[in-house]
């Protein structure tokens, strides 16, 4: 059995229908545990005080904002190369979620920045990169919305996603060059030395898992919606023909 079988809408609907409730429940579980753990049962940071609790929202959403785009890049490539409709529709389904995650990352960052940096917004490289990412999501979704023929829309948005990825990456470096910034280093990395302490680390992991699962559940749900819309469209077009 190959993974490409799921590229058939019927197969995908069957499997995703079975999978969706499990993923949804798991994600809710992880989110509730992670956020409650983080909110109620973690100590304050000696420097940041209680604002450190915002990382349980900020870091996972920022992570998913980028991962959602990566997923769109991969599914776009699959569509362009193998022309599996489900793949293109999954990319379309993921965009609003990525946009939402970007917005959450930006908002929580701004709220956290107010007491820490004394301002809601600073043209810090990371914040700026996320703002640019936000614009990319907007453009991508606008292109999907503007084109009537769904296959053409899938083609064009895929090309945009490809080119956009290159330029998003380029922007990241350009922005670094432009302003060295005040953002703290990566909160999570394999290099343990620089990491946040364990007390913060574990609930953060749970909360990240929750966001990943939530993303997955939403992608499944939204892809199912898109497939149904496509089927409805195909049937109506067929009716009109006869």
């Amino acid at each position, binding site marked *: 059995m190959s993974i490409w079988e799921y590229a058939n809408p019927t197969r995908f609907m069957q499997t995703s229908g079975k999978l969706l409730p499990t993923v949804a429940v798991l994600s809710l579980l992880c989110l509730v545990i992670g956020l409650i753990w983080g909110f109620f049962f973690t100590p304050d940071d000696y420097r940041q005080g209680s604002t450190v609790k915002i990382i349980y929202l900020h870091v996972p959403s920022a992570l998913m904002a980028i991962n959602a785009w990566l997923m769109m890049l991969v599914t776009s490539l699959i569509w362009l190369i193998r022309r599996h409709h489900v793949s293109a529709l999954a990319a379309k389904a993921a965009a609003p979620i990525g946009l939402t995650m970007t917005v959450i990352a930006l908002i929580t960052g701004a709220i956290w920045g107010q007491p820490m940096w004394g301002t809601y917004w600073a043209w810090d490289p990371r914040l700026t990169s996320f703002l640019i990412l936000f614009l990319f999501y*907007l453009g991508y979704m606008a292109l999907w919305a503007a084109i009537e023929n769904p296959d053409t829309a899938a083609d064009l948005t895929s090309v945009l996603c490809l*080119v956009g990825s290159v330029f998003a990456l380029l922007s990241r470096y*350009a*922005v670094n060059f432009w302003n060295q910034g005040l953002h703290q280093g990566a909160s999570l990395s394999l290099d343990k030395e620089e990491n946040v302490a364990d007390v913060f680390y574990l609930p953060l992991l749970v909360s990240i898992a929750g966001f990943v699962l939530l993303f997955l559940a939403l992608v499944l749900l939204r892809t199912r919606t898109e497939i149904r819309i496509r089927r409805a469209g195909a049937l109506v077009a067929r009716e009109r023909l006869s």
Partner: protein
Amino acid sequence: MIALLRRDLRLAIRAGGGFGLGLAFFLILVVLVPFGVGPNSDILSRIAPGILWVGALLSCLLSLDRIFQLDYEDGTLDLLATAPLPLEAAATLKALSHWLTTGLPLTIAAPFLGVLLSMPSGATFWLVASLALGTPALSMLGTFGAALTVGLKRGGLLVSLLVLPLYMPTLIFGAEAVRRGAEGLPATTALLFLAAITAGCAALLPFASAAALRMNLR
């Protein structure tokens, strides 16, 4: 190949071709800024590089939807797609003619408009160099955006939305080069990045633009 370029340039300068519109827009924008921020030449000279670059970028944006739209509407694009000239070449030539009618005039006009913004004279070289290196990338990215939206009735606004984030790195390096040049700091690195972006765009974007055109003509 040269025929397409010649025709596009000829169309641009004939009546209704829109040549000079971008340039006029650039002029107006630069004239408006001092009224907005006040006549203080210290402030003006500090923001001049940014204003000139943003102005050039917006003027480029203004004429993007004309790149393919007219050819699409009168059926020329269909015929071009069936012609022996590969669409990749057509896209490159379209970008080139867009640059010749907007980017190049802007580059030439920018130092004179810099005077209006009391830009330090040391920055003039960097301004011209960065615009000359950067505006071709803007035209090529714009051609890509125009190719994506060619079949749409009201593609003008959408093109701006699609293209603006793509313009970000070019704008950053371009304005940065001028700013550093104006302050007497080394600006060559930014200029090199700019050249790299333009070279990368020239190498890759014609394929993306041609692919988008083919998808739209289907």
